[in-house]
């Protein structure tokens, strides 16, 4: 960032801590969703939730420190998440076609 350039300061109405807490809550919800739900689609959505929780944290810290790095990372995350959705949904659809189920516990035939 060129010297002397700074982001315009936002009104300090919402403190950074609130964003971080929100991010942690969303991440925890997403984690629990991944661990506790059996439906593959739900788990998938929970993963998205976790990714977006991270995005919130990135953006919040970017603003906090007045740097673009966090925001750039968010774009990367969103792009990767989009690709992941495409692949992941494809797999899930295929599993559904062959097994007639999207229950994640039924898909355990890679057991050692």
């Amino acid at each position: 960032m060129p010297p002397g350039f700074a982001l315009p300061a936002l009104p300090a109405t919402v403190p950074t801590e609130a964003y971080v807490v929100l991010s942690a809550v969303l991440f925890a919800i997403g984690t629990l969703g991944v661990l506790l739900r059996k439906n593959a689609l739900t788990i998938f959505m929970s993963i998205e939730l976790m990714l977006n929780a991270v995005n919130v944290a990135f953006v919040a810290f970017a603003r906090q420190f007045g740097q673009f790095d966090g925001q750039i990372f968010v774009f990367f995350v969103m792009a990767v998440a989009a690709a992941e959705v495409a692949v992941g949904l494809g797999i899930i659809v295929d599993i559904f076609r062959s097994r007639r189920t999207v229950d994640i516990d039924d898909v355990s035939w890679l057991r050692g």
Partner: protein
Amino acid sequence: MLWLVPALPLLGSVVSLFFGRRLPKALAGTIASGAVLGAFVVALLAVLEFVAGDTTHPFQQHLFPWIAWGEGRAQVLVAEAGLLLDPLSSVMVLVVTGVGFLIHLYSMGYMAHDPSYPRFFTYLNLFAFSMLVLVLANNFLFMFVGWELVGLCSYLLIGFWFTRPSAASAGKKAFVVNRVGDWGFLVALLLIWTTFGTFQFFADPAVATTGGVLDDPGRVIRDGSLALAIALLLFVGAVGKSAQVPLYVWLPDAMEGPTPVSALIHAATMVTAGIYMVARVHTLYELAPASLAVVATIGALTAIFAASIGLVQTDIKRVLAYSTVSQLGYMFLALGAGAFAAGIFHLMTHAFFKALLFLGAGSVIHALSDEQDLRRMGGLFSPLKVTALTFLAGWLAIIGFPGFSGFFSKDLILAKTLERGLEDPWYLVLYAVALLTVAMTAFYMSRLVFLAFFGRHRGADEGLMPAEARAVPEHEPAAAAGAVATHQRASPVVHASHNSRAADREAHGAHGAHGSTPHESPWIMLIALIVLALLSIGGGWVGIPPFMVGAAGHESPFEAFLAPSVAAHGAAEAHGALEATMEWVATGASVVMAGIGVAIAAALYLAGTPSPADFARRFRQPYLWLLNKWYVDELYQALIAHPGARLAAFLAAFDLGVVDGAVNGIARLSRGTGAALRSVQSGYVRGYAVTMLIGAFAILAFWAFRG
């Protein structure tokens, strides 16, 4: 055309091998016999042609280079496949093909009922080929090929009835014991190569080669100990092949083979290979006189040792086997006395009469439906007239009855030993031993003849002849002689040993139930017996010593014929001959000794006074020692076979425990690790997720509490 001699039996063997099963039996046998007959005719023509020319130089035929390196002029020939005809190999080749053919002929009758008939003739022809290579080879390495091949054939034929464990193990024993001798031969070959740089026996003027080993070895070897080493190592080979002390143990067991094999290989030809080899390389022995003393001593020792065992054996083939060992000892005694021609002469006559005796024994066994125990024979003279008469000819030949072949050859050996003894007193001792052996030979052969052909038939169901049976502690009267189990219990050998009694059982499956009346063998077998009987009677007349016919000189025609091959170059034979009167005394001594042997046998087994049983009781300990063959087999068992087995067991345990253990241990470790870790791979994605979460917490905790 000399190459045809070994080639014909080889061809016969190959034909029998590939087509024998498809041909009718008679034709298969005829082809095999015809191949050997053809070889005999070709050999005879070749020998006649050779004799007509200059016999002082051997005739050589170079077939093809076998081992060579380099190209063109720079080529170094290590060994070739080449044949050599000189007086010595002439005698050998005629004996091998002539006696071999008669035994082939006999086998056609003897083996007629055997299901493996073609296989038998394949082996027999292969043997004839191998033996001919051995005696005709013109260099050491090619001779060694024949040497090893006859060993192989011997193994194959001893174990011909390989389904019987005793036959299989006898074959193995012969092979293993022969390996010991072959080791000596092989080391001698290495020494010869490093010393002479060639394996050729003789230089061939027709081909520009370097001089042969045997032309005049003294020009290369100046070191007496080197000559001694080569000579003794070669003798180790001869001891193994020709069944001398201490490597004779395989030959009696070799009687497990079919009787024609015993006659051809283990009496007439193969076992004489050692004699032939020593006579062939005699120039090397003459460079080291000490080696000749060793040869003579081993020979005399073997002669008396084997004869002593033969005194009390009850199996007809075993008596003959020990007799063969003993006679081979005589031949080595002759060689050791420097009388190489005498050794070869006895080799030839022995081939005639021992083949005859074995084939006669086979005819007896055949007639009695596979009975081999002398104690169950007797009175066979009238039912088996031809066999008995021919057997008597063989008997008179081997005991040295004046006029028969064995008389001349054995007498020559004794005379030569005595001659040598006048210079070297040690040979006088050997002469005394040989003379004593004459009496023992006469005794055991007469005992065999009297027990088998005279007296009353003691047949299968009369139990053992009480005479000798009572002397055996563990004897049980053999009631049912047909059962193999009974055979083994009735075996006179107190300790377990191979019983070759059932050896020829399978050959005559068709005869089945043992006939109570002995029957004469088919004519094809009798022809061989008759021809061999004629040879046993007249075969020695080529070697009638001059003093008996009042001729000048001291060489018999046979010796004169062999002289170009075996005449001593060195000092070994450079002594005067015995006076004629001395010769007569020596001859008289051996005849008297033989007479004593026959008389004792007649007193014991014909007159029965004193009875053999009393005799055996009075000399119980010596009797048991002889009956158990001086416990030599037991000694070898304890000294060599048992430690060998222990070592093998230890090595097997080491291999299984340590070597295999290491390999299997590594495999088991991988498998165990995998088994432990696979439980982690549950296949439940959420389980993996929990693991990741725990891991993440662990990393966080680590960073948080690192201090």
